[in-house]
Protein backbone atom coordinates (compact mmCIF):
# COMPACT_ATOMS: atom_id res chain seq x y z
CA UNK A 1 0.00 0.00 0.00
CA UNK A 2 2.90 2.35 0.67
CA UNK A 3 3.96 2.07 -2.95
CA UNK A 4 0.55 3.22 -4.18
CA UNK A 5 0.66 6.20 -1.82
CA UNK A 6 4.19 6.88 -2.99
CA UNK A 7 3.13 6.74 -6.61
CA UNK A 8 0.21 9.09 -5.94
CA UNK A 9 2.62 11.63 -4.49
CA UNK A 10 5.13 11.11 -7.27
CA UNK A 11 2.57 11.17 -10.06
CA UNK A 12 1.78 14.81 -9.57
CA UNK A 13 5.44 15.72 -9.80
CA UNK A 14 6.63 13.18 -12.37
CA UNK A 15 6.83 13.69 -16.08
CA UNK A 16 4.43 11.84 -18.32
CA UNK A 17 7.11 9.66 -19.89
CA UNK A 18 8.49 8.55 -16.55
CA UNK A 19 5.01 7.73 -15.28
CA UNK A 20 4.36 5.76 -18.46
CA UNK A 21 7.46 3.63 -17.88
CA UNK A 22 7.12 3.12 -14.14
CA UNK A 23 3.40 2.57 -13.80
CA UNK A 24 2.23 1.47 -17.27
CA UNK A 25 -1.02 -0.10 -16.14
CA UNK A 26 -2.15 2.99 -14.20
CA UNK A 27 -1.14 5.19 -17.13
CA UNK A 28 -3.36 3.16 -19.45
CA UNK A 29 -6.24 2.91 -17.02
CA UNK A 30 -6.36 6.68 -16.70
CA UNK A 31 -6.74 6.89 -20.47
CA UNK A 32 -9.27 4.07 -20.65
CA UNK A 33 -11.52 5.89 -18.18
CA UNK A 34 -11.86 8.59 -20.84
CA UNK A 35 -12.41 5.92 -23.54
CA UNK A 36 -9.29 6.90 -25.40
CA UNK A 37 -5.79 5.49 -25.84
CA UNK A 38 -2.43 7.28 -25.46
CA UNK A 39 -2.01 7.54 -29.23
CA UNK A 40 -5.37 9.29 -29.51
CA UNK A 41 -7.35 6.38 -30.95
CA UNK A 42 -10.83 5.53 -29.63
CA UNK A 43 -11.00 2.03 -28.18
CA UNK A 44 -12.59 0.34 -31.18
CA UNK A 45 -10.46 1.79 -33.94
CA UNK A 46 -7.57 0.03 -35.61
CA UNK A 47 -4.43 1.84 -36.72
CA UNK A 48 -3.93 3.20 -40.25
CA UNK A 49 -3.43 0.36 -42.68
CA UNK A 50 -1.66 0.49 -46.03
CA UNK A 51 -0.95 -2.21 -48.60
CA UNK A 52 1.60 -1.96 -51.42
CA UNK A 53 1.51 -4.75 -54.00
CA UNK A 54 4.48 -5.90 -56.02
CA UNK A 55 7.08 -4.91 -53.45
CA UNK A 56 9.44 -7.76 -54.44
CA UNK A 57 10.01 -7.71 -58.19
CA UNK A 58 11.67 -11.13 -58.40
CA UNK A 59 8.78 -12.97 -56.76
CA UNK A 60 5.66 -14.15 -58.56
CA UNK A 61 3.48 -12.26 -56.12
CA UNK A 62 4.33 -10.00 -53.24
CA UNK A 63 2.92 -7.39 -50.91
CA UNK A 64 4.04 -5.05 -48.15
CA UNK A 65 1.39 -4.47 -45.50
CA UNK A 66 1.59 -1.93 -42.67
CA UNK A 67 -0.80 -1.68 -39.77
CA UNK A 68 0.40 1.38 -37.84
CA UNK A 69 4.11 0.64 -37.38
CA UNK A 70 3.85 -3.14 -37.77
CA UNK A 71 5.31 -3.95 -41.18
CA UNK A 72 5.11 -7.30 -42.96
CA UNK A 73 6.65 -8.22 -46.31
CA UNK A 74 5.11 -11.27 -48.01
CA UNK A 75 6.37 -12.94 -51.18
CA UNK A 76 5.07 -15.95 -53.10
CA UNK A 77 7.39 -18.01 -55.31
CA UNK A 78 6.14 -20.84 -57.46
CA UNK A 79 8.05 -24.04 -58.14
CA UNK A 80 7.05 -27.13 -60.05
CA UNK A 81 6.78 -30.36 -58.13
CA UNK A 82 5.24 -33.82 -58.48
CA UNK A 83 1.90 -33.92 -56.75
CA UNK A 84 1.18 -36.41 -53.99
CA UNK A 85 -0.27 -39.79 -54.92
CA UNK A 86 -3.44 -39.26 -52.87
CA UNK A 87 -4.22 -35.97 -54.60
CA UNK A 88 -2.77 -36.04 -58.11
CA UNK A 89 -4.46 -32.89 -59.30
CA UNK A 90 -3.77 -30.62 -56.39
CA UNK A 91 -0.88 -28.27 -55.77
CA UNK A 92 0.60 -27.36 -52.42
CA UNK A 93 1.29 -24.26 -50.33
CA UNK A 94 4.19 -23.97 -47.87
CA UNK A 95 3.95 -21.03 -45.48
CA UNK A 96 6.77 -19.70 -43.35
CA UNK A 97 6.82 -16.68 -41.05
CA UNK A 98 10.17 -15.19 -40.09
CA UNK A 99 10.98 -12.69 -37.40
CA UNK A 100 14.48 -11.46 -38.20
CA UNK A 101 16.34 -9.45 -35.53
CA UNK A 102 15.49 -6.21 -37.31
CA UNK A 103 11.91 -6.35 -36.14
CA UNK A 104 12.29 -5.99 -32.40
CA UNK A 105 14.95 -5.45 -29.73
CA UNK A 106 13.77 -8.65 -28.03
CA UNK A 107 14.82 -10.85 -30.97
CA UNK A 108 18.51 -11.67 -31.39
CA UNK A 109 20.14 -14.20 -33.76
CA UNK A 110 20.71 -16.70 -30.99
CA UNK A 111 17.35 -16.03 -29.39
CA UNK A 112 14.60 -16.72 -31.94
CA UNK A 113 11.22 -15.20 -31.18
CA UNK A 114 8.71 -17.49 -29.53
CA UNK A 115 5.91 -16.04 -31.57
CA UNK A 116 7.32 -17.02 -34.98
CA UNK A 117 6.49 -20.75 -35.17
CA UNK A 118 3.14 -20.16 -33.50
CA UNK A 119 2.12 -17.54 -36.06
CA UNK A 120 3.36 -19.78 -38.90
CA UNK A 121 1.12 -22.59 -37.73
CA UNK A 122 -1.87 -20.31 -37.24
CA UNK A 123 -1.41 -18.80 -40.70
CA UNK A 124 -1.13 -22.24 -42.31
CA UNK A 125 -4.28 -23.44 -40.59
CA UNK A 126 -6.28 -20.37 -41.55
CA UNK A 127 -5.13 -20.04 -45.14
CA UNK A 128 -5.73 -23.71 -45.87
CA UNK A 129 -9.03 -24.02 -44.05
CA UNK A 130 -10.63 -20.75 -45.14
CA UNK A 131 -10.99 -22.04 -48.67
CA UNK A 132 -9.29 -18.98 -50.12
CA UNK A 133 -7.27 -21.00 -52.60
CA UNK A 134 -8.57 -24.04 -54.42
CA UNK A 135 -5.53 -26.29 -54.61
CA UNK A 136 -6.80 -27.74 -57.88
CA UNK A 137 -6.00 -24.38 -59.50
CA UNK A 138 -2.34 -25.02 -58.80
CA UNK A 139 -2.31 -28.17 -60.87
CA UNK A 140 -0.48 -28.32 -64.22
CA UNK A 141 -0.51 -31.86 -65.57
CA UNK A 142 -2.62 -34.21 -63.51
CA UNK A 143 -0.47 -36.71 -61.66
CA UNK A 144 2.81 -35.41 -63.04
CA UNK A 145 3.30 -31.74 -62.30
CA UNK A 146 1.76 -29.16 -60.03
CA UNK A 147 2.74 -25.85 -58.51
CA UNK A 148 4.23 -25.61 -55.06
CA UNK A 149 3.73 -22.09 -53.73
CA UNK A 150 6.27 -20.96 -51.15
CA UNK A 151 4.86 -18.10 -49.12
CA UNK A 152 7.46 -16.33 -47.00
CA UNK A 153 6.47 -13.53 -44.69
CA UNK A 154 9.12 -11.37 -43.08
CA UNK A 155 8.31 -9.17 -40.13
CA UNK A 156 10.22 -5.93 -40.55
CA UNK A 157 8.81 -4.12 -37.55
CA UNK A 158 6.97 -5.79 -34.68
CA UNK A 159 4.60 -3.35 -33.02
CA UNK A 160 1.65 -5.51 -31.99
CA UNK A 161 -1.06 -7.36 -33.95
CA UNK A 162 1.54 -9.43 -35.77
CA UNK A 163 -0.93 -12.07 -36.87
CA UNK A 164 -3.33 -9.52 -38.39
CA UNK A 165 -0.61 -7.86 -40.43
CA UNK A 166 0.83 -11.21 -41.51
CA UNK A 167 -2.54 -12.50 -42.69
CA UNK A 168 -3.24 -9.25 -44.53
CA UNK A 169 0.10 -9.35 -46.33
CA UNK A 170 -0.39 -13.03 -47.24
CA UNK A 171 -3.85 -12.36 -48.68
CA UNK A 172 -2.54 -9.34 -50.61
CA UNK A 173 0.41 -11.34 -51.98
CA UNK A 174 -1.92 -14.07 -53.23
CA UNK A 175 -4.18 -11.46 -54.83
CA UNK A 176 -1.16 -10.11 -56.67
CA UNK A 177 0.16 -13.54 -57.67
CA UNK A 178 0.51 -14.20 -61.38
CA UNK A 179 1.16 -17.76 -62.47
CA UNK A 180 3.84 -17.76 -65.20
CA UNK A 181 3.39 -19.49 -68.55
CA UNK A 182 5.04 -22.86 -68.85
CA UNK A 183 5.16 -25.65 -71.37
CA UNK A 184 6.22 -29.25 -71.50
CA UNK A 185 9.48 -29.77 -73.37
CA UNK A 186 10.77 -32.93 -75.08
CA UNK A 187 12.17 -34.55 -71.96
CA UNK A 188 8.80 -34.33 -70.32
CA UNK A 189 9.94 -31.49 -68.06
CA UNK A 190 8.15 -28.25 -67.47
CA UNK A 191 10.00 -25.15 -68.65
CA UNK A 192 9.19 -21.51 -68.26
CA UNK A 193 8.38 -19.64 -71.43
CA UNK A 194 10.02 -16.24 -71.36
CA UNK A 195 8.68 -13.38 -73.45
CA UNK A 196 11.48 -13.48 -76.04
CA UNK A 197 10.80 -17.03 -77.12
CA UNK A 198 7.07 -16.71 -77.34
CA UNK A 199 7.24 -16.45 -81.09
CA UNK A 200 9.25 -19.66 -81.54
CA UNK A 201 7.70 -22.97 -82.48
CA UNK A 202 7.06 -25.48 -79.71
CA UNK A 203 6.37 -29.14 -80.23
CA UNK A 204 3.69 -29.15 -77.61
CA UNK A 205 1.23 -26.40 -76.74
CA UNK A 206 1.99 -24.34 -73.65
CA UNK A 207 0.35 -25.85 -70.63
CA UNK A 208 -1.32 -22.61 -69.75
CA UNK A 209 -1.93 -19.99 -72.40
CA UNK A 210 -1.16 -16.80 -70.58
CA UNK A 211 -0.13 -15.45 -67.24
CA UNK A 212 -3.13 -15.77 -65.06
CA UNK A 213 -4.09 -14.73 -61.59
CA UNK A 214 -5.43 -17.13 -59.02
CA UNK A 215 -9.15 -17.17 -58.56
CA UNK A 216 -9.64 -16.43 -54.88
CA UNK A 217 -12.97 -17.49 -53.46
CA UNK A 218 -13.22 -15.68 -50.17
CA UNK A 219 -10.50 -13.70 -48.47
CA UNK A 220 -9.96 -14.08 -44.74
CA UNK A 221 -9.36 -10.95 -42.66
CA UNK A 222 -8.69 -10.78 -38.96
CA UNK A 223 -8.72 -8.48 -35.97
CA UNK A 224 -6.98 -8.95 -32.64
CA UNK A 225 -8.58 -7.33 -29.61
CA UNK A 226 -6.97 -6.95 -26.20
CA UNK A 227 -9.28 -7.60 -23.26
CA UNK A 228 -8.75 -5.77 -20.00
CA UNK A 229 -11.45 -5.79 -17.32
CA UNK A 230 -14.45 -4.35 -19.12
CA UNK A 231 -12.53 -2.70 -21.91
CA UNK A 232 -11.97 -4.09 -25.36
CA UNK A 233 -9.11 -2.50 -27.28
CA UNK A 234 -9.03 -3.21 -31.00
CA UNK A 235 -5.65 -3.69 -32.70
CA UNK A 236 -3.30 -3.37 -29.71
CA UNK A 237 0.21 -2.00 -30.16
CA UNK A 238 3.19 -3.86 -28.69
CA UNK A 239 3.10 -1.78 -25.50
CA UNK A 240 -0.61 -2.49 -25.01
CA UNK A 241 -0.12 -6.20 -25.70
CA UNK A 242 2.59 -6.50 -23.06
CA UNK A 243 0.50 -4.76 -20.39
CA UNK A 244 -2.88 -6.30 -21.08
CA UNK A 245 -1.83 -9.84 -21.66
CA UNK A 246 -5.16 -11.24 -22.75
CA UNK A 247 -6.12 -11.02 -26.38
CA UNK A 248 -8.66 -12.56 -28.71
CA UNK A 249 -8.21 -12.99 -32.47
CA UNK A 250 -11.26 -13.30 -34.71
CA UNK A 251 -10.89 -14.23 -38.39
CA UNK A 252 -13.83 -13.68 -40.75
CA UNK A 253 -14.01 -14.24 -44.48
CA UNK A 254 -15.43 -11.85 -47.07
CA UNK A 255 -18.95 -13.17 -46.59
CA UNK A 256 -18.62 -12.47 -42.83
CA UNK A 257 -18.59 -16.16 -41.89
CA UNK A 258 -16.46 -17.11 -38.91
CA UNK A 259 -13.22 -18.81 -39.94
CA UNK A 260 -11.44 -18.84 -36.60
CA UNK A 261 -11.80 -17.61 -33.03
CA UNK A 262 -8.64 -17.87 -30.97
CA UNK A 263 -8.13 -16.86 -27.36
CA UNK A 264 -4.91 -18.47 -26.17
CA UNK A 265 -5.28 -18.41 -22.37
CA UNK A 266 -4.11 -15.25 -20.66
CA UNK A 267 -4.84 -13.73 -17.26
CA UNK A 268 -8.30 -12.46 -18.18
CA UNK A 269 -11.47 -14.39 -18.84
CA UNK A 270 -13.78 -13.52 -21.73
CA UNK A 271 -17.53 -13.38 -21.25
CA UNK A 272 -19.87 -14.19 -24.11
CA UNK A 273 -20.76 -10.51 -24.47
CA UNK A 274 -17.09 -9.59 -24.86
CA UNK A 275 -16.71 -12.20 -27.59
CA UNK A 276 -19.79 -10.87 -29.38
CA UNK A 277 -18.41 -7.31 -29.20
CA UNK A 278 -15.10 -8.47 -30.65
CA UNK A 279 -16.89 -10.17 -33.53
CA UNK A 280 -18.84 -6.96 -34.20
CA UNK A 281 -15.59 -4.94 -34.26
CA UNK A 282 -14.09 -7.49 -36.64
CA UNK A 283 -17.05 -7.16 -39.01
CA UNK A 284 -16.39 -3.42 -39.28
CA UNK A 285 -12.69 -4.02 -39.77
CA UNK A 286 -13.27 -6.59 -42.53
CA UNK A 287 -15.18 -4.02 -44.54
CA UNK A 288 -12.37 -1.47 -44.10
CA UNK A 289 -9.72 -3.97 -45.11
CA UNK A 290 -11.63 -5.13 -48.18
CA UNK A 291 -11.85 -1.54 -49.36
CA UNK A 292 -8.13 -0.95 -48.80
CA UNK A 293 -7.18 -4.15 -50.62
CA UNK A 294 -9.44 -3.42 -53.59
CA UNK A 295 -7.96 0.06 -53.89
CA UNK A 296 -4.45 -1.36 -53.86
CA UNK A 297 -5.35 -3.92 -56.54
CA UNK A 298 -6.97 -1.35 -58.81
CA UNK A 299 -3.96 0.96 -58.40
CA UNK A 300 -1.73 -1.88 -59.62
CA UNK A 301 -3.92 -2.61 -62.60
CA UNK A 302 -3.91 0.99 -63.75
CA UNK A 303 -0.12 0.82 -63.93
Amino acid at each position, binding site marked *: MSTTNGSNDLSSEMEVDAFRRLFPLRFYERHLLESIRPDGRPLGRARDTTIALGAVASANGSALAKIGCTTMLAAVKLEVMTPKLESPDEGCIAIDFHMPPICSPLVRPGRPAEAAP*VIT*KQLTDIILSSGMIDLKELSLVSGKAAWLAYLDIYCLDADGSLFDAALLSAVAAFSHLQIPVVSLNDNGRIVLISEENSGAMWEKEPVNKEKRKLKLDTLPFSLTCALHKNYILADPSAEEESIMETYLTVVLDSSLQLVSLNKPGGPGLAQTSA*IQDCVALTIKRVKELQKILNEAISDMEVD
Partner: protein
Amino acid sequence: MKSTEEKGEDGRSATQLRPLSCTRSVLNRAHGSASFSQGETKILAAVYGPKAGTKKNENPEKACIEVIWKPKSGQIGKAEKEYEMILKRTLQNICILNVHPNTTTTIIIQVVNDDGSLLPCAINAACSALVDAGIPLKYLAVAISFCLAEDEYCVLDPNKLEEQCLEQGRAAIKLLSDFLRRKLWSKVQSDVSVAG
Protein backbone atom coordinates in the same frame (compact mmCIF):
# COMPACT_ATOMS: atom_id res chain seq x y z
CA MET B 1 -22.54 -37.40 -41.23
CA LYS B 2 -24.15 -38.79 -38.13
CA SER B 3 -27.27 -37.62 -36.41
CA THR B 4 -27.39 -37.31 -32.65
CA GLU B 5 -28.88 -40.76 -32.22
CA GLU B 6 -26.45 -42.67 -34.42
CA LYS B 7 -23.26 -44.03 -32.96
CA GLY B 8 -19.75 -43.48 -34.24
CA GLU B 9 -17.24 -46.21 -34.94
CA ASP B 10 -16.45 -46.76 -31.29
CA GLY B 11 -20.09 -46.86 -30.33
CA ARG B 12 -20.24 -43.31 -29.00
CA SER B 13 -23.01 -40.86 -29.77
CA ALA B 14 -22.15 -37.31 -30.75
CA THR B 15 -22.36 -35.89 -27.22
CA GLN B 16 -20.68 -38.70 -25.39
CA LEU B 17 -17.13 -38.37 -24.09
CA ARG B 18 -14.58 -41.14 -24.21
CA PRO B 19 -13.76 -42.83 -20.91
CA LEU B 20 -11.55 -40.53 -18.81
CA SER B 21 -8.94 -41.61 -16.31
CA CYS B 22 -6.41 -39.71 -14.24
CA THR B 23 -3.58 -41.00 -12.07
CA ARG B 24 -1.48 -38.71 -9.86
CA SER B 25 2.04 -39.12 -8.47
CA VAL B 26 3.20 -41.48 -11.18
CA LEU B 27 6.79 -40.15 -11.18
CA ASN B 28 9.00 -40.38 -8.10
CA ARG B 29 11.44 -37.56 -8.67
CA ALA B 30 9.13 -34.90 -10.02
CA HIS B 31 7.57 -32.50 -7.54
CA GLY B 32 4.18 -33.32 -9.03
CA SER B 33 3.03 -35.56 -11.82
CA ALA B 34 -0.13 -36.88 -13.39
CA SER B 35 -1.14 -39.14 -16.21
CA PHE B 36 -4.41 -38.27 -17.94
CA SER B 37 -6.12 -40.30 -20.61
CA GLN B 38 -9.20 -39.74 -22.72
CA GLY B 39 -9.97 -42.96 -24.55
CA GLU B 40 -6.73 -43.95 -26.26
CA THR B 41 -5.10 -40.51 -25.97
CA LYS B 42 -2.68 -40.52 -23.05
CA ILE B 43 -0.56 -37.67 -21.73
CA LEU B 44 1.99 -37.63 -18.90
CA ALA B 45 2.60 -34.30 -17.19
CA ALA B 46 5.40 -33.54 -14.70
CA VAL B 47 5.83 -30.39 -12.62
CA TYR B 48 9.17 -29.19 -11.27
CA GLY B 49 9.13 -26.10 -9.11
CA PRO B 50 9.03 -23.49 -7.87
CA LYS B 51 12.73 -23.05 -8.62
CA ALA B 52 14.64 -19.87 -7.92
CA GLY B 53 15.04 -17.21 -10.58
CA THR B 54 13.10 -16.22 -13.65
CA LYS B 55 14.08 -16.11 -17.30
CA LYS B 56 15.46 -12.94 -18.84
CA ASN B 57 12.39 -11.22 -20.26
CA GLU B 58 9.95 -12.30 -17.59
CA ASN B 59 8.53 -10.15 -14.81
CA PRO B 60 10.46 -10.82 -11.56
CA GLU B 61 7.55 -9.74 -9.39
CA LYS B 62 5.51 -12.73 -10.45
CA ALA B 63 6.09 -16.46 -10.69
CA CYS B 64 7.03 -17.64 -14.17
CA ILE B 65 5.55 -20.71 -15.83
CA GLU B 66 7.54 -22.62 -18.42
CA VAL B 67 6.05 -25.39 -20.54
CA ILE B 68 8.00 -28.01 -22.48
CA TRP B 69 6.03 -30.20 -24.86
CA LYS B 70 7.57 -33.44 -26.01
CA PRO B 71 5.84 -35.20 -28.92
CA LYS B 72 5.58 -38.96 -29.05
CA SER B 73 7.92 -39.18 -32.04
CA GLY B 74 9.71 -36.80 -34.35
CA GLN B 75 11.36 -33.47 -33.80
CA ILE B 76 9.84 -30.50 -32.06
CA GLY B 77 8.08 -28.41 -34.69
CA LYS B 78 5.66 -25.53 -34.98
CA ALA B 79 2.64 -27.38 -33.64
CA GLU B 80 4.54 -28.18 -30.45
CA LYS B 81 5.52 -24.52 -30.03
CA GLU B 82 1.91 -23.47 -30.44
CA TYR B 83 0.76 -25.98 -27.83
CA GLU B 84 3.46 -24.74 -25.46
CA MET B 85 2.28 -21.15 -25.90
CA ILE B 86 -1.40 -21.96 -25.37
CA LEU B 87 -0.68 -24.13 -22.35
CA LYS B 88 1.63 -21.54 -20.79
CA ARG B 89 -0.92 -18.76 -21.13
CA THR B 90 -3.72 -20.96 -19.79
CA LEU B 91 -1.70 -22.04 -16.75
CA GLN B 92 -0.69 -18.44 -16.10
CA ASN B 93 -4.37 -17.73 -15.73
CA ILE B 94 -5.10 -20.43 -13.18
CA CYS B 95 -1.96 -20.20 -11.03
CA ILE B 96 -1.71 -17.58 -8.33
CA LEU B 97 1.43 -15.86 -9.52
CA ASN B 98 1.95 -13.46 -6.62
CA VAL B 99 2.56 -16.11 -3.96
CA HIS B 100 6.07 -17.04 -5.08
CA PRO B 101 7.61 -14.11 -6.95
CA ASN B 102 10.85 -14.52 -8.85
CA THR B 103 10.50 -18.28 -9.30
CA THR B 104 10.05 -20.58 -12.27
CA THR B 105 7.73 -23.57 -12.38
CA THR B 106 8.42 -25.96 -15.23
CA ILE B 107 5.73 -28.21 -16.62
CA ILE B 108 6.81 -30.98 -18.97
CA ILE B 109 4.20 -32.65 -21.14
CA GLN B 110 5.03 -35.99 -22.71
CA VAL B 111 2.64 -37.40 -25.31
CA VAL B 112 2.37 -41.11 -24.68
CA ASN B 113 -0.30 -41.83 -27.26
CA ASP B 114 -2.10 -39.53 -29.68
CA ASP B 115 -5.64 -40.45 -30.65
CA GLY B 116 -7.17 -37.00 -31.08
CA SER B 117 -8.03 -34.22 -28.57
CA LEU B 118 -4.37 -33.78 -27.66
CA LEU B 119 -4.42 -30.24 -26.28
CA PRO B 120 -7.45 -30.65 -23.97
CA CYS B 121 -5.97 -33.84 -22.56
CA ALA B 122 -2.71 -31.98 -21.93
CA ILE B 123 -4.49 -29.11 -20.17
CA ASN B 124 -6.30 -31.57 -17.92
CA ALA B 125 -3.08 -33.46 -17.22
CA ALA B 126 -1.13 -30.27 -16.45
CA CYS B 127 -3.83 -29.07 -14.07
CA SER B 128 -3.82 -32.40 -12.20
CA ALA B 129 -0.03 -32.35 -12.01
CA LEU B 130 -0.05 -28.82 -10.58
CA VAL B 131 -2.53 -29.94 -7.93
CA ASP B 132 -0.28 -32.91 -7.16
CA ALA B 133 2.73 -30.60 -6.75
CA GLY B 134 0.86 -28.31 -4.41
CA ILE B 135 1.27 -25.19 -6.57
CA PRO B 136 -1.35 -22.65 -5.42
CA LEU B 137 -4.15 -22.41 -7.96
CA LYS B 138 -7.12 -20.07 -8.19
CA TYR B 139 -9.34 -22.72 -9.75
CA LEU B 140 -9.07 -25.84 -11.84
CA ALA B 141 -8.93 -25.85 -15.62
CA VAL B 142 -11.03 -28.24 -17.66
CA ALA B 143 -10.77 -28.58 -21.40
CA ILE B 144 -12.71 -30.37 -24.11
CA SER B 145 -12.50 -30.33 -27.85
CA PHE B 146 -15.28 -30.72 -30.35
CA CYS B 147 -15.48 -30.94 -34.09
CA LEU B 148 -17.78 -28.77 -36.11
CA ALA B 149 -18.98 -30.43 -39.30
CA GLU B 150 -20.39 -28.63 -42.31
CA ASP B 151 -24.05 -28.70 -41.35
CA GLU B 152 -23.26 -27.11 -37.95
CA TYR B 153 -23.25 -30.53 -36.39
CA CYS B 154 -21.05 -30.97 -33.30
CA VAL B 155 -19.16 -34.02 -32.19
CA LEU B 156 -17.65 -33.90 -28.71
CA ASP B 157 -14.21 -35.28 -27.91
CA PRO B 158 -13.26 -36.51 -31.39
CA ASN B 159 -10.68 -39.25 -31.82
CA LYS B 160 -7.99 -39.01 -34.49
CA LEU B 161 -10.11 -40.58 -37.21
CA GLU B 162 -13.03 -38.25 -36.59
CA GLU B 163 -10.68 -35.24 -36.52
CA GLN B 164 -9.34 -36.12 -39.93
CA CYS B 165 -12.53 -37.23 -41.64
CA LEU B 166 -14.99 -34.55 -40.70
CA GLU B 167 -15.37 -31.66 -43.12
CA GLN B 168 -13.49 -32.19 -46.33
CA GLY B 169 -10.64 -34.06 -44.76
CA ARG B 170 -9.69 -31.18 -42.52
CA ALA B 171 -11.65 -30.99 -39.29
CA ALA B 172 -12.48 -27.61 -37.83
CA ILE B 173 -11.47 -28.28 -34.26
CA LYS B 174 -12.49 -25.64 -31.80
CA LEU B 175 -10.59 -25.87 -28.58
CA LEU B 176 -12.22 -24.36 -25.56
CA SER B 177 -9.43 -23.17 -23.33
CA ASP B 178 -11.86 -21.16 -21.21
CA PHE B 179 -13.42 -22.65 -18.15
CA LEU B 180 -16.42 -24.88 -18.67
CA ARG B 181 -19.12 -25.29 -16.12
CA ARG B 182 -20.82 -28.59 -15.39
CA LYS B 183 -23.44 -28.47 -18.12
CA LEU B 184 -21.01 -28.80 -21.03
CA TRP B 185 -23.56 -29.40 -23.74
CA SER B 186 -25.80 -26.39 -23.07
CA LYS B 187 -22.83 -24.02 -22.97
CA VAL B 188 -21.45 -25.45 -26.18
CA GLN B 189 -24.79 -24.97 -27.92
CA SER B 190 -25.08 -21.32 -26.93
CA ASP B 191 -21.50 -20.58 -27.96
CA VAL B 192 -21.95 -22.22 -31.35
CA SER B 193 -25.07 -20.17 -32.09
CA VAL B 194 -23.23 -16.98 -31.15
CA ALA B 195 -20.17 -17.73 -33.21
CA GLY B 196 -21.91 -19.16 -36.27
